[in-house]
C-alpha cells in the first residue's frame, strides 16, 4: 500500500514536471481548452457591448430626438457634441451604432463564440485528440482576434466616430462619407476586418487539420459526432469564403488611402463637388465580394448552433439521432450550396433578371438540406423520454425559432416578393429569428450543457430556467412585431423609427405605403421588450460567474450520461485531455441500446464479449 502510494506520488510528480506559470497557463496558453474559454469570455463581453449599442438605438427609434436616459451624458462626453448633443443620438451616431452592432455581433461575438469557443473546447475532445494540431497557431488566432476587436472598438474614438455605412460597408458610401479624415471609422473597420479574417483563417486551417489528422483510433468519419461535422463544414466556409472579403477590404483600403477607384464609378459628385479620382470602378463589385463572404457567413453562424442542439437533443431524448447520415450529407450540401447563393442579397441592384433567376433557384435549393436537418431533429424527439433540463429548453426553443427564421426567409429568396420586403424591418425580423433566438439560444444551450465539463460544477437550474423563459418571451416580443412593421413598409435604416416618413405620408391621405400610427407605436413596445431582455440576462451572467465557485459539484465525469468522448475525460480535462487515449468502437449516439446495462453506451466503452467474439468470427 505504502509502496503504491509512493509510486503514484512519483507518477504525479513526473506528470506535473512541466507545470506552467500563471501567464503561460491562463493568458498565453496553447491549450485548446483555455483558448476556447478565452474566446468564449471575450465574445460574451463583445456580445453584451453590441447589445448595449442596440438598446441605445432602440431608444432613438422609440423616442426620436429625446436624450438617452442614464447614459446620455456619457455619450456626449465620449462621442462629442457633434454626434450626441445633449445626450441625443444624432442620425450619424445612429448609423455608426447600427453598423457596429452588426459588425460586432457577427464577427466579434457570435462567430467567435460558436466557432472559436465551442469549436476549440469541444471538437478536440469529441474526436479524442490531445490538443489542436497547431497549438501555437491557435494561440495566435485568439490574440489576432482580440486585436481586431480592439481596433473595431477604438474606432468609436476617432474624430467622426465609428464606421457608419452599415455592416455591409457598401461603396461608394463607405469611401466618401468622411473625406476629411483618412484615419476614419471606416479605415479602422477595414483594418479590423483584415485582422479578424486572418484570425478565423488560422482557426479554420487548424480545425480542419485537427479533424482530419487527430481523430482517435476507430473514430471513422461516420462515427464523428454531428457537432464535429458541423464545425468541420463551418471551418471550410471560413477558409474559403473569408478571403474574398479580405481582398475586398484591401481594395477598399486602396480606395481610401491611395485614391484608387475600385468601387467608385465615373462622375461621382459628393456634396456638390466632383470627386477627384480617376473613376471607372464598380460599386457592384464590392457587393459581390462582400456577399460572397456574407452568405456563407450566415451558415457559419447557424451550423455550430445546429451541432450543439443535435448533441443536446440526442442526450436528452435518450435516443439515437434520427437520420444521422442524412444530416451529415445535408450539412455538406449546405456547405457547398452556400457558396452559390450570395447574389440573392442583391436583387435590387439591377444586376439582371437572368442572374436573379439563377440565384433564386440556388436559394430555394439550399432550403432543402436545411429542412432535412430540422426534420431529423424533430423526428428525433418522437417517442423519446425527454429530460427537460436547462440545455434542452434552449435546444427545443432553438428548433422552433430557427424554423420561423428559416421559413420567413423564403419570401426574401424569391426576387418578386423581395422587391417589397427588401431593406425593411421584415428582413431584420427574419435574420434575427435565425441568429438571436436561433443561434444564440443554441449557444446558451451549449454553455449550460458543457459548463459542468469546463468547471466541474453545474449552473443553477432555477435561474437557468428563469433565464430561458424570460429570454424566450422577450425575444419573441421584440422580433415578431417587426414582421408587421416590415410588411407595412418600414425601412430598416430610418433613424427615427419612421416618424418623419409617417408624418410626410399620412395613411388617411391615401398613401398606400405609409406607416400607420399602430405600426409606429410598436416601436415603443419593441424597445421596452429589449430592455426587459437585457434584464433577463442578469440571472445568466450571475449564474455563470457565481456557479464557478458556488455551483453544485458534479460527482461523475459524465453528469448527463452522454456517449461522446468529451465526457470520457477527467473534469475539467487537464492539458493533454485524456487520462487514457480512447479507442472508439461505435457511433456517436448509442442511447437506449436494447440489452445494454445502461441507457447510454459511450463511444469508447469496450465491446461486450459476445459482440467481440461475433466480430472475430466474421
Amino acid at each position: 500500500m505504502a509502496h503504491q502510494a509512493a509510486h503514484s506520488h512519483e507518477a504525479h510528480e513526473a506528470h506535473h514536471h512541466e507545470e506552467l506559470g500563471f501567464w503561460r497557463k491562463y493568458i498565453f496558453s496553447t491549450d485548446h481548452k483555455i483558448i476556447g474559454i478565452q474566446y468564449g469570455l471575450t465574445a460574451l463581453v463583445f456580445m453584451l457591448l453590441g447589445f448595449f449599442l442596440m438598446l441605445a438605438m432602440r431608444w432613438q427609434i422609440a423616442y426620436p430626438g429625446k436624450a438617452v436616459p442614464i447614459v446620455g451624458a456619457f455619450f456626449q462626453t465620449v462621442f462629442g457634441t457633434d454626434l450626441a448633443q445633449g445626450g441625443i443620438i444624432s442620425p450619424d451616431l445612429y448609423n455608426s451604432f447600427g453598423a457596429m452592432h452588426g459588425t460586432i455581433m457577427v464577427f466579434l461575438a457570435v462567430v467567435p463564440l460558436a466557432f472559436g469557443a465551442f469549436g476549440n473546447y469541444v471538437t478536440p475532445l469529441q474526436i479524442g485528440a490531445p490538443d489542436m494540431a497547431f497549438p501555437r497557431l491557435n494561440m495566435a488566432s485568439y490574440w489576432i482576434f482580440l486585436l481586431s476587436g480592439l481596433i473595431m472598438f477604438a474606432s468609436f474614438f476617432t474624430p467622426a466616430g465609428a464606421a457608419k455605412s452599415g455592416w455591409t460597408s457598401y461603396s461608394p458610401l463607405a469611401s466618401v462619407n468622411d473625406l476629411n479624415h483618412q484615419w476614419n471609422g471606416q479605415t479602422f473597420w477595414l483594418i479590423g476586418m483584415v485582422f479578424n479574417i486572418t484570425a478565423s483563417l488560422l482557426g479554420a486551417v487548424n480545425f480542419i487539420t485537427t479533424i482530419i489528422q487527430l481523430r482517435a483510433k476507430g473514430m471513422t468519419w461516420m462515427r464523428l459526432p454531428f457537432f464535429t461535422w458541423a464545425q468541420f463544414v463551418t471551418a471550410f466556409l471560413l477558409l474559403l469564403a473569408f478571403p474574398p472579403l479580405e481582398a475586398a477590404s484591401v481594395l477598399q483600403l486602396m480606395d481610401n488611402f491611395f485614391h484608387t477607384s475600385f468601387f467608385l464609378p465615373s462622375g461621382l459628385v459628393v456634396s456638390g463637388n466632383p470627386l477627384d479620382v480617376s473613376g471607372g470602378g464598380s460599386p457592384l463589385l464590392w457587393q459581390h465580394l462582400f456577399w460572397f463572404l456574407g452568405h456563407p457567413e450566415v451558415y457559419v453562424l447557424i451550423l455550430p448552433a445546429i451541432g450543439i442542439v443535435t448533441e443536446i437533443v440526442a442526450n436528452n431524448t435518450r435516443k439515437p439521432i434520427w437520420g444521422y447520415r442524412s444530416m451529415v450529407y445535408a450539412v455538406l450540401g449546405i456547405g457547398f450550396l452556400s457558396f452559390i447563393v450570395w447574389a440573392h442579397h442583391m436583387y435590387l441592384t439591377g444586376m439582371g433578371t437572368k442572374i436573379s433567376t439563377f440565384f433564386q433557384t440556388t436559394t430555394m435549393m439550399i432550403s432543402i438540406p436545411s429542412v432535412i436537418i430540422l426534420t431529423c431533429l424533430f423526428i428525433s424527439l418522437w417517442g423519446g423520454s425527454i429530460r427537460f433540463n436547462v440545455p434542452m429548453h434552449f435546444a427545443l426553443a432553438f428548433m422552433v425559432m430557427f424554423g420561423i427564421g428559416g421559413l420567413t426567409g423564403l419570401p426574401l429568396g424569391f426576387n418578386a416578393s423581395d422587391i417589397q420586403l427588401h431593406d425593411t424591418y421584415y428582413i431584420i425580423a427574419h435574420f434575427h429569428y435565425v441568429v438571436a433566438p436561433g443561434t444564440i439560444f443554441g449557444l446558451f444551450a451549449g454553455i449550460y450543457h458543457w459548463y459542468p465539463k469546463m468547471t466541474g460544477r453545474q449552473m443553477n437550474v432555477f435561474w437557468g430556467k428563469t433565464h430561458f423563459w424570460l429570454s424566450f418571451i422577450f425575444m419573441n416580443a421584440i422580433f415578431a412585431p417587426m414582421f408587421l412593421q416590415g410588411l407595412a413598409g418600414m425601412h430598416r435604416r430610418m433613424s427615427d423609427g419612421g416618424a418623419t416618413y409617417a408624418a410626410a405620408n399620412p395613411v388617411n391621405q391615401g398613401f398606400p405605403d405609409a406607416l400607420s400610427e399602430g405600426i409606429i407605436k410598436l416601436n415603443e413596445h419593441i424597445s421596452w421588450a429589449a430592455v426587459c431582455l437585457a434584464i433577463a440576462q442578469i440571472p445568466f451572467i450571475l449564474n455563470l460567474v457565481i456557479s464557478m465557485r458556488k455551483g453544485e459539484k458534479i460527482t461523475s465525469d459524465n453528469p448527463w450520461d452522454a456517449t461522446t468522448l468529451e465526457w470520457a475525460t477527467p473534469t475539467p480535462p487537464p492539458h493533454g485531455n485524456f487520462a487514457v487515449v480512447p479507442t472508439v468502437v461505435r457511433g456517436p449516439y448509442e442511447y437506449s441500446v436494447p440489452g445494454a446495462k445502461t441507457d447510454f453506451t459511450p463511444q469508447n466503452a469496450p465491446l461486450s464479449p459476445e459482440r467481440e467474439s461475433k466480430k472475430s468470427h466474421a
Partner: protein
Amino acid sequence: MDIPYTTKPRPDTGLYNAKVGIWLFLASEIMLFGALFSSYILLRVGADPKLVWPALAAWPSHSDGLLNVPMGAINTLVLIVSSVTVVMAWASLKMKNFNKFFMYQGITVACAILFCGIKSAEYAAKFSHYHLVLKDGTAFTGHLEPKQYFMTDRKLRQAKVEEITFLKDPQKGHAEASAEHGSGDEAHASHEPEKIKMSDIKRLTFWGPQQSTYFAIYFTMTGLHALHVVGGALVIGYLWLPGSRMWKTNPERFTNRVEVCGLFWHFVDLVWIFLFPVLYLL
C-alpha cells in the same frame, strides 16, 4: 503531451499535420487571389469606353506599352528558377546531403531578392512617369525635368509652382497617324523638354494606383504578390541560416519544414505565372 503526426504521416491520410495545414492555407490563398483576378475581369469588362484618359485607353493593353515586358519576362524566369531550386533543396535533404541543400536554397533566396529588386526598379520607373492632360483636351505621357517622384498637379499647386518642364514620350500612335498624312516630322519635333504653365494643366499625375483603375489593380495585385514573395523569402531564409540547426537534432522534421515552405513558394510562383500574362501581355 505530444501531438501525433507532427512529423510522421498518419497512415490513413498519408500526410503529416503541417502538410494538410499548408494545403488548406493555399486553398484560402487561391480564394484571395481568385477574388482579385475576378475583380480584374469585372473591372476590365466593365471599363467605361467613354472614360478614355487621353493618350491612354480606358483599359490599356499590351500595345500601349505601359509595362516593361522584358523586365516582367526576366522576373518570370527568375521565379521559375527559384521554384526548381526550392525542390532541389528539399530533394537534397531527402538524400541526406545538407551542403547541396545549402547551395540550392541559397540560390532560391538570391532569386527572391533579385525578383524584388527588379520589381522595385519597375515600380520606381512608374512612380516617375507621368500622365498629363491639358485644359484644351490634349494629353501626353512623359517625364518631369528634373526627375521627380510621386508628383501630382494638386501638390504642385499647393507648392505654388507656376510652370513645369515636361519631356514628352515619343508618341507611337500619333507618329503613325501623322505619317499617313505625310507630316511625320511633327511627331518627332517635340522630343525636347517643354515648359508648360500650371494654368494650362487639367490633370498631372504619376503612374501610380490613383492614375487609373488599370494601374490600381496592377499595383494592388503585384504589391500583394510581392508581399508574399517577401514573406516566403523570410521563412526560406530563416530555414536556410538559423533554422537549419534543426537538421542536427531532428532531420526529418527539418526536411518537412523545407517541404512545406517549398509548397508555399510554388504557389507564389504560380500566382506570378498568372499575373505576368494577365497584366503585361493581354
